[in-house]
């Protein structure tokens, strides 16, 4: 079967798979960003207990594999009475994994803000929370956006692993079609192209736009 005929016949399934992939991507991104902020700030905390918790989280999630984390959350947590539905387990695992990497970016971004900014914020008598929220984080955000762009691509690629716990994403649909038709080159080729298009023409341009937008807000454009 030619590639064109293949697409005519199977595009609806590839499309629903892509939809699930995008949903997983967005939900995992929300979780990942929230965890990054939390853990990044905690790792900078004065409190040794908070720091310890953040370091433990980051090292565990960066030191093991996303596949292992995914299986653990989906197969092992139910044994502790915490059963998570596969769709949720999927984006949760991917988001928690990315959060550990993002935490380091948040920490680095905050540390890259010049000391004078902290001092000036203190000199107008801002509270520590105000300093962080109004002065430091907006500037940290600008400096950490470029590496976040790469991390978002890693996140998109990471969502392909949710197929391993049978979430019907693009990867899963591709495997199903392959199993029933053996049109491997067509189906995996099409899936590769779809992931590439999502990364190159959706995620990357959006992150670039965000970078430019934030730079403009800083008056640096």
């Amino acid at each position: 079967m030619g590639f064109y005929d293949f697409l005519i016949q199977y595009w609806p399934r590839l499309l629903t798979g892509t939809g699930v992939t995008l949903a997983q991507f967005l939900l995992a991104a929300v979780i990942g960003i929230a965890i990054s902020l939390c853990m990044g700030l905690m790792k900078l905390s004065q409190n040794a207990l908070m720091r310890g918790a953040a370091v433990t989280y980051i090292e565990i999630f960066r030191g093991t594999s996303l596949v292992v984390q995914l299986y653990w959350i989906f197969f092992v947590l139910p044994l502790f009475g915490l059963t998570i539905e596969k769709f949720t387990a999927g984006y949760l695992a991917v988001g928690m994994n990315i959060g550990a990497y993002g935490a380091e970016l948040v920490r680095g971004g905050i540390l890259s803000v010049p000391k004078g900014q902290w001092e000036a914020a203190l000199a107008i008598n801002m509270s520590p929370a105000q300093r962080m929220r109004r002065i430091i984080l907006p500037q940290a955000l600008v400096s950490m956006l470029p590496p976040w762009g790469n991390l978002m691509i890693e996140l998109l690629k990471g969502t392909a692993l949710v197929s391993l716990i049978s979430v019907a994403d693009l990867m899963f649909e591709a495997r199903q079609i392959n199993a029933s038709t053996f049109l491997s080159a067509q189906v995996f080729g099409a899936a590769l192209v779809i992931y590439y298009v999502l990364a190159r023409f959706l995620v990357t341009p959006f992150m670039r736009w965000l970078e430019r937008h934030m730079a403009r807000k800083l008056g640096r454009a």
Partner: protein
Amino acid sequence: MFDWKWDFTWEILPRLISATGNTLIAAGAGYVIAVVLGLMLALAQRTPSRAVTFTVREFVEFIRSTPLILQIFFVFYVGPQFGIRLSPWMSGMIAIGLHYACYLSEVYRGGIESVPKGQWEAAIALNMTTVQKYRRVIIPQAIPPALAGMGNYLVGIFKDTPMLSVIGVAELIHTANAIGSENYRFLEPYTMVGIIFLAISLPAAGLIRLFEGYVRRKLGL
């Protein structure tokens, strides 16, 4: 609450340890392929031919933007469609080696670009051939700044080996899956796999940092 069975843990440990051997071999072999192929991809982007540079650049972008697990499937299943049979190990090494070669080519590229212009000019002034220039002057200076990235990807490739389980490479996760479904117990195998990953990747990351420092000192940087 913890339904942890120590006798079962001890029983499965030998199998997991031998699977760890496979995981390490896969990571090691994949990394060797990536290190060599990555350098070729980096150098190919420095040829005078615009077409070659462009093609290689786009290829690297494509591989980096698409999921490794999909690439593994692609290599494993597409060959037979055209009469080429590759063993799971073979396809796995090709896919993971190629994937990381693209990452490493970016690391090399950064290293090569960090060599000051004066070094190129000095090499020309000594009337060196292109091969001599790279081999004697540029690459030795490009490696130290690239070491951190190279080390990170060594740990990265190790953490990505569980993806090889999907085509039947008997590495850690594959073995844990098998143990789990034979005994209907997932807690111990998956948890042990996580611990084994941590026990290897954390010291490895530390060793790599030490090695980096050692090389820097040795080169007087």
